[in-house]
């Protein structure tokens, strides 16, 4: 079983790599030297929320409250269990390094599918190897993110934007802020690793909106 999965993943991986490179090239051409703070692709003003990526999808009717149990992003071969996490020093505390392959859901916020922004955090790597959200920065707009929930429903999200937010110029509103539209934020680390601080310089944030649901 795991072997089959790996074989299929390597095919997908090549696709993801190629896709990622093409998209980065496209992104660079569209953003001549404007740094990490895109006001919106092509200078398009972000409607409604000035400090967030533009909303591509119309608000979907919120789903009833139900805890998330699993996240799947087929396009990058990400399949992981979800545990509940709280806050530590003002940030959602990712699952411990002893369980690097699970994602953490911020239990103080909405459940994925409910109104508002549900937050999922996960490590990009441990001190020795890639972790659950290692491939997160290669996710592209339009990608499907499925969240399996405790009530047996699956909330379907579609990626609207992927951003690298520098920790030195961190905008909590941009990363965590939300209205009532059901959304999902997937957050991990990125940028460069400071060996002294033992920390990455940025957060990678995937912005996704609820676009559908089905029963498992």
């Amino acid at each position, binding site marked *: 079983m795991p072997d089959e999965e790996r074989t299929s993943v390597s095919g997908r991986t090549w696709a993801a790599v190629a896709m990622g490179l093409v998209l980065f090239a496209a992104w660079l051409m569209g953003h001549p030297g*404007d740094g990490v703070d895109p006001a919106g692709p092509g200078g398009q003003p972000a409607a409604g929320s000035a400090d967030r990526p533009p909303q591509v999808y119309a608000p979907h009717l919120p789903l009833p409250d139900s805890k998330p149990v699993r996240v799947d992003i087929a396009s990058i071969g990400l399949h992981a269990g979800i545990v509940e996490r709280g806050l530590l020093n003002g940030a959602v505390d990712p699952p411990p390094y002893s369980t690097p392959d699970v994602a953490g859901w911020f239990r103080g916020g909405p459940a994925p599918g409910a109104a508002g922004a549900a937050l999922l955090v996960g490590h990009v790597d441990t001190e020795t190897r890639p*972790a659950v959200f290692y491939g997160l920065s290669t996710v592209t707009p339009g990608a499907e993110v499925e969240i399996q929930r405790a009530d047996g429903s699956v909330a379907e999200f579609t990626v609207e934007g992927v951003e690298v937010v520098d920790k030195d110029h961190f905008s909590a509103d941009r990363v965590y802020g939300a209205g009532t539209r059901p959304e999902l934020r997937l*957050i*991990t680390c990125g940028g460069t690793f400071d060996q002294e601080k*033992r920390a990455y310089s940025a957060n990678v944030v995937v912005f996704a909106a609820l676009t559908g649901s089905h029963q498992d």
Partner: protein
Amino acid sequence: MLDIRRPAAAGAAVLFLLSGAVPAFADNESSASASGTVTVTPGKTWAGAVITLHVKSACRSAKAKASAEVFVSPVTLAPPVDGQDGLVSDASIRSDAVAGTYSVSVECDGNTHAAQGTVVIINQVAPVTPVKPEPLWPTAPVPAGGGGTAQLAAGPAEAGPGTDSVLAVGGAAAASLAAVAVYRRRRHG
């Protein structure tokens, strides 16, 4: 008889002098001098504040009166309800108290200076201990990496922040994915 007692008294006085009890003894003009101390908590306070006075052993009676220039009015000290030693009372500092050091004197057993202490009025803004409410929503970046794959990002990122760092992340991710894929292909091929 007298001849015997006087040397003894003189000897006691010498002992006192040697043992460092000089100030209390030297100031001893009369029996009215303070023989005990009143503890003021907090020792430094501000106009309008309430302080606590505690006399440990200076009074034999179960009541004492404490007064100070900066008190709203003299207060009566009584044994604490928890059954501990001494006499206690709260005292209010006048709202128009001027910064400075003021003496507090305690009267008991007919002694107007049975115990003494000081209270310092600093009249700075009351130190507000910031009670940090438990935040309900995150405000800080997520610490989500141990750096195990970071050497891959070290190269291009040194060029500078902004676009380059995005490139570095993307490049690193792509490069490592490629590496993983090659590794897997070799393993399975």
